[in-house]
């Protein structure tokens, strides 16, 4: 039940170990890592810059996590989201959900990442051959969020 917003990279394996240390009640853990791709909407892109709203970001992530805890039977969770500039192949976001039952961990993980995409105050700018471009909100992401409401 932790959220972090940071400029630095994170280590998914170390985060997983820390979350599970000493736990014997967890049957399944789902980890999602989002990464910078070198293409987007069929065009080549370079680095990504993530702007965010310090203060509100942490509140929004904590609210999203609390919502997941109320909807799903999960025993532990972690959200880490980076901001700043990231090259293709770099990690952007980590979501870990742990439950006695794997289905709940899967549901909670997908719920969290769907919500993060449309409800956390982050904005992506991509370096393209035509210069930096703000990433537009995608209808598919809105639809992914809507299916949980």
């Amino acid at each position, binding site marked *: 039940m932790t959220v972090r917003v940071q400029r630095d990279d994170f280590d998914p394996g170390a985060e997983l170990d820390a979350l599970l240390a000493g736990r014997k009640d967890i049957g399944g853990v789902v980890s999602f890592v989002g990464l910078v791709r070198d293409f987007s909407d069929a065009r080549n892109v370079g680095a990504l810059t993530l702007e965010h709203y310090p203060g509100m970001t942490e509140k929004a992530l904590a609210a999203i996590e609390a919502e997941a805890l109320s909807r799903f039977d999960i025993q532990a969770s972690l959200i880490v989201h980076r901001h700043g500039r990231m090259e293709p192949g770099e990690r952007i976001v980590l979501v870990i959900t742990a439950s006695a039952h794997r289905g709940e961990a899967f549901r909670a993980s997908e719920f969290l990442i769907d919500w993060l995409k*449309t409800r956390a105050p982050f904005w992506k700018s991509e370096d393209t051959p035509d210069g930096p471009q703000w990433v537009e909100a995608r209808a598919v992401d809105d639809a992914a969020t809507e299916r949980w409401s």
Partner: protein
Amino acid sequence: MKLLYFAWVRERTGVHEETWSLPEGVTTVRGLIGALSGRGPGFAHAFADLKQIRTAVNQETAKLDDPVSDADEVAFFPPMTGG
């Protein structure tokens, strides 16, 4: 009040963060956006399409008809694209 602008709203207004006095008679997010739009072409451009504008009042997502006061922190930004 404290005003914040992010992403292309920030680029168009040319302002990231400022202190501003809520004009008399303005009581809602919608009214505030109207007042800001009159501050010049950058602001007018930023707020031209309300469908593309999202707002937070005191760091909570707000709607166009939600109330604002001179003590609030209000932020304007495009739809979020995190994750």
